[in-house]
């Protein structure tokens, strides 16, 4: 079959009523709902490596990288999906406004496609330099206090990028999905194709046009005292501190953006209907991670415990002829599994030495079990695991080393700025999934909590009750499962030490 892969960035699962919506809004998402009714809805799908670019290496190279390296490029020993598809005679296209693919530190994600469309201007995209003094209301709402500053990554870039926007069609999700629909209309002479759509929306800034800006709030969306690009962190202290009114506005703007994405995703679904492509096309809709919007007292993707708000993600798959279409799939799955799924669906030989496991046996109805565990995290920080019923969050020591393993010298934590030389680097064949030598160099270890955390996410999906100390049986079982997973992955030796786990 042909394949459409759609990633809608930061699409928090609990805003979707297909999963038992738990937010305060009556969400208008008719197109996501319509697709979910048609496709398989995966109930226990989890992120792996976070945030944005690590997730893309999982999607498109099948590598669960966070135990070995942070945000960075495709590696020379990776087998990118588009390259594999090209070799198999498949025409490949990328449509994206995800500017991180074109930034310092993360090359190799678009070069293998036969064609790519890059919609410019989202978030910090270094695109427009005029007007020098963009909309002062927007500057306040995105918290830009130094609009004439010339350092990397200034928020004024966003205000300049959208300064010419007049209508809804000028915004990012409309452009991404309209371009996608147009590509589908114009490319049906190709018999085999792969279309990858990486929508940066719903990612912040949560700046959207009407009617979405007013859809879930009675506030004036142009009130300069209300922000739509909050800082990451606690909402009760520091730069991310906000009051109830402010938090309600941010959540309403996020919800509005979800509805805007849904509206334009509908154009893509309409083309699939009009062109009668459903019988020959696999369609995957998912996200890389969620986004804290006050849940557990946090905003954004900060140095917080990795609750399910961030890591338990939506996944919907349409696969022609599958007996599980329109049904719920309760097997545990991981973001990295989309890679082998697409590879197999396209008829390509699955590359060796990846961490990806194809979902096709589930989709063919051959099994109802997929994996015993899914691990997830950020490089250099805590390591987390789920069996689909429990989540176990393991803190790390900050006084023990953690290493980056890569052919590149990258900034372990400052991902977007020019890479700095790693003068302590040594070379060696360190990776269990590649026979190429790589650099190894140290980075800083940081934890997100001081004690392990355990939740039963079936009984307590909001993770309001930490069972550590109260459910010692499952605490020990999940800890043992984490050890077994790290051993199976052949995680670096220092990971066991810094996590306080036996090797």
């Amino acid at each position, binding site marked *: 079959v042909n394949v459409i892969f759609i990633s809608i960035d930061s699409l928090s699962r609990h805003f979707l009523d297909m999963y038992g919506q738990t937010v305060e809004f009556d969400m208008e998402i008719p197109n996501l709902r319509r697709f979910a009714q048609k496709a398989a809805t995966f109930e226990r799908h989890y992120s792996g490596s976070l945030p944005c670019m690590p997730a893309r290496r999982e999607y498109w190279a099948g590598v669960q990288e966070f135990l070995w390296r942070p945000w960075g490029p495709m590696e020379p020993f990776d087998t990118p999906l588009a390259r594999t598809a090209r070799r198999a005679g498949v025409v490949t296209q990328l449509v994206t406004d995800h500017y991180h693919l074109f930034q310092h530190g993360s090359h190799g994600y678009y070069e293998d496609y036969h064609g790519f469309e890059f919609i410019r201007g989202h978030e910090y995209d270094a695109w427009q330099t005029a007007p020098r003094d963009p909309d002062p209301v927007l500057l306040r709402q995105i918290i830009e206090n130094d609009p004439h500053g010339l350092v990397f990554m200034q928020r004024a870039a966003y205000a300049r990028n959208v300064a010419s926007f007049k209508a809804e069609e000028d915004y990012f999700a409309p452009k991404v999905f309209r371009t996608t629909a147009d590509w589908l209309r114009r490319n049906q002479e190709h018999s085999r194709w792969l279309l990858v759509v990486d929508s940066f929306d719903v990612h912040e800034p949560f700046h959207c046009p009407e009617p979405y800006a007013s859809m879930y709030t009675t506030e004036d969306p142009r009130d300069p005292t209300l922000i739509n690009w909050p800082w990451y962190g606690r*909402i009760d202290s520091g730069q991310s501190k906000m009051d109830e009114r402010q938090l309600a506005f941010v959540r309403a703007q996020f919800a509005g953006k979800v509805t805007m994405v849904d509206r334009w995703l509908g154009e893509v679904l309409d083309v699939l209907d009009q062109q009668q492509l459903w019988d020959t096309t696999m369609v995957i809709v998912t996200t890389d991670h969620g986004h804290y919007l006050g849940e557990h*007292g946090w905003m954004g993707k900060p140095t*917080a415990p990795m609750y399910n708000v961030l890591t338990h993600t939506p996944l919907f798959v349409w696969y022609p002829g599958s007996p599980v279409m329109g049904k719920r799939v309760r097997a545990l799955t991981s973001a990295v599994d989309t890679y082998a799924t697409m590879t197999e669906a396209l008829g390509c030989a699955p590359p060796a030495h990846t961490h990806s496991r194809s979902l096709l046996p589930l989709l063919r109805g051959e099994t109802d079990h997929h994996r015993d565990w899914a691990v997830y995290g*950020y490089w250099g920080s805590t390591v987390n695991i789920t069996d689909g019923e429990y989540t176990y969050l393991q803190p790390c020591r900050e006084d023990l080393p953690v290493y980056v393993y890569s052919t590149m010298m990258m900034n372990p934590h400052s991902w977007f700025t020019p890479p700095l030389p790693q003068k302590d680097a040594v070379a060696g064949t360190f990776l269990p999934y590649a026979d190429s030598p790589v650099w190894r160099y140290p980075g800083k270890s940081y934890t997100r909590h001081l004690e392990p955390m355990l939740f039963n996410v079936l009984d307590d*999906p909001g993770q309001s009750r930490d069972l550590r100390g109260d459910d010692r049986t499952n605490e020990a079982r999940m800890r043992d499962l984490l050890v077994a997973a790290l051993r199976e992955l052949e995680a670096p030796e220092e990971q066991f030490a810094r996590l306080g786990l036996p090797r």
Partner: protein
Amino acid sequence: MMRFLVCDTGYMMNERQDTMHHRTVAQCPADAPADATAPTISYCLSNVDDATRHMLQTYDGACKVIEECCLQRCGYCYDEPFLVVDDQLVRGSSHAAIFQTLAPAETPKGSSP
């Protein structure tokens, strides 16, 4: 104290649950009354060397000091030392020098301007 909507599944928790897990590296004991006038000082992991990080982690004055793996000030972070004091970015020749301008009597031990 801020209160949030509480939904059926508990997604919108009150903030106290997480306070004990917050990666605050140096602050008053959790049950001690906080000094409402003392600033919250945040630093970025990429912007400190090991000695400065240790200095900030072991600070035991009135200010609340928070470590973040990224404070979303990447351009400034790339260029020079900075701290975020409440919501204000403050730049300087060193973290100790910045700290000294904020709270001269409370400059962390082992620091040098």
